[in-house]
């Protein structure tokens, strides 16, 4: 086939035929090699968590992608297109600059603590005096998970990436990861009874513009309760949580075991 092969004749038919296929082959192999090299480079640069988060985000239903300003009623019905990265969002910057007073929000019976910042993957972050931050599960997620069978925390010294997996938990048949609101190094591990799950030393100055607090966080949790009811009732055909009352401490009991993995995945933003 190639020059050097005894059958090879340098005529137009051979050149066109073999040239066309060589071009297609080189294009296919080149594209494949490009994808592999790009993937390796992205992993080496520590971009894996960001890529994974964006991929997960695109698969989330619209109800899970509400803009923070939609939650507060400032921009009703608006959905986030930036994977909850408010840092580069012009709309967010404009609204913060305008500093419109937020309407009063019913917390729906959940605790929103003043010293915490909330990620929409249901992790909270608290800035400590020593420059570290502590991470934990917000009130809704804590009640939703109930008694976790296994809490798979990263070891001290491991690195977390913003929007990458912070830790994993297993409850019955459900296995789900919780997204980290911050990039940094794990300096201490806690537990469900210790008030925090991880203590992290952030990489560089802490940027919390993408996180929610105060009434924004309360509005978020209130909206999340609606989403939870839809997630449960979708499979069962009837609302599983009573409207009008306060949520019970252990919401996990309201979710049938066979649906728990799906519901936890939907609520903790894991496709």
């Amino acid at each position, binding site marked *: *086939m190639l020059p050097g*092969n005894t*059958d090879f004749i340098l005529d137009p*038919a*051979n050149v066109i*035929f*073999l040239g066309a*296929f060589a071009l*297609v*082959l080189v*294009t*296919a192999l080149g*594209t*494949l090699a*490009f*994808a*592999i090299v*790009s*993937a*390796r480079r*992205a*992993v080496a640069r520590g*971009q*894996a*968590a960001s*890529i*994974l988060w964006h*991929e997960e985000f695109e*698969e989330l*239903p619209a109800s899970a992608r509400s803009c923070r300003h939609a939650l507060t009623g400032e921009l009703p019905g608006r959905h986030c297109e930036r994977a909850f990265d408010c840092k580069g969002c012009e709309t967010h910057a404009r609204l913060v600059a305008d500093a419109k007073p937020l309407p009063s929000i019913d917390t729906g019976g959940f605790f929103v603590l003043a010293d915490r910042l909330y990620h929409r993957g249901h992790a909270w972050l608290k800035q400590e005096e020593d420059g570290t931050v502590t991470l934990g599960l917000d009130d809704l997620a804590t009640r939703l998970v109930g008694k976790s069978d296994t809490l798979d925390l990263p070891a001290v010294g491991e690195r977390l990436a913003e929007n990458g997996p912070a830790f994993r938990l297993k409850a019955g*048949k459900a*296995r789900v990861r919780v997204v980290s609101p911050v990039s940094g190094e794990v300096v201490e591990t806690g537990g469900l009874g210790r008030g925090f799950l991880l203590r992290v030393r952030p990489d560089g100055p802490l940027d919390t513009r993408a996180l929610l607090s105060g009434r924004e966080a309360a509005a978020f949790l209130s909206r999340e309760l609606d989403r939870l009811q839809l*997630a449960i009732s*979708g*499979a069962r*055909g009837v609302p599983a949580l009573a409207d009008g009352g306060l949520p019970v401490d252990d919401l996990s009991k309201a979710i049938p075991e066979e649906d728990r*993995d*799906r519901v936890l*995945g*939907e609520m903790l933003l*894991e*496709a």
Partner: protein
Amino acid sequence: MDDTLIGRGLKRTPLPRFLLWLVPWAALLALGLYAVYLCFAVGLNQTNMDNRFAFGLWIYLDLTVIALGAGAFFTGFLLYILKKKELKAVINSAVVIGFICYSGAVGILMVDVGQPLRAWFTFWHPNVHSMLAEVTFCLTLYLSVLAIEYAPLVLKNRRLKEVPGLLVLENQLHKVMVVFAGIGTLLSFFHQGSLGGLYGVLRGNPFAFREHIGIWPTTFFLFILSAAAVGPSFILLTTWLVGKVSKKRLVSPEVFQTLAKISGWLLLVYVVLKGIDSLVWINSTSPKTGVQVSSFYAHPPFGTWVLFAEVVLLGLVPAVMLLSRRVRARTGLLVLAAAMACAGVVLNRYIMTIQTLALPSLPFDSFLSYSPSWQEIAAFLAVLGYGVLLYSISFRWLNLFPEERELATKG
């Protein structure tokens, strides 16, 4: 273990029941592999083919599955190049079906050539003037492209995607998928066409020979068009079938509507062109060679009904049905129309392969009949077994239908 491989929110049958479902298909595959062993160990005398009837059940199978598997390239073309976003709901399944069809075809070809260890000869000593050389190059390249397109589906398995590097690779592959969709379209265009051209250039066989446009016989274009037309119908049919077997809603009705409309319009254009081609062949091409077309249909069971069935009953009728809004509104009729369209291309490939070889092409020739040996049938069924096995495993552990979870939640 099995639970952790199944996608979140997807309901699958219990593992023992799934394994039981696989048993008959695995048995078919095993029987076929034994037949393949006999062909390799004893020789191609295990088949009922000979020098005169050199194309049999296997080549017919190849042509058929390659035509039906066109849904993969055509759906990819519509989604990635023409941006028909609604087809995202079936693209994963289309890729798996395409991979099964093409790998099955290549597997059978390896048996058919008798000496698979010398398969590389075709690449090293190609006859560039042969349609078959182009088919071989395109098939192998396209199968490689399909394997690359399959890879992201596997990498997105629930367990595998927990490995960051693999999901990043999946992400990067997804970004360049438009290139592979383009390559797949180009390769499919030429090998579907060359498979048709293979018959249209047979000057010594008036039944198969057709007029040429440029260097290509009309069958070149008709094969491309027929494959593109029935590809979406086959995707529709298989999606419906998988939904019935698994008792699940896999795609929204709008997806079926889109597939049906695309298939219907292309089939209509194909039938018109096929009709024109047949009229030219009947009134000009064949008489010029000294043979009247009526003589081709004088050998039972190949009567004129074959032509009617191919062009009208399984061509025009399903095209009109697929284009009718009232038919599309009723799933039963829609699926029937898609099945008829697929049957039409199956019959076309049968006629082009078997009837072409059965008819006498020289004055002293006689009409030949051919029945495949059990080894040929077993190898044929092995492709079916292999296909069902691979599709079943993919359906269980990979997310073939992105809308499935949402549709299940809606109830």
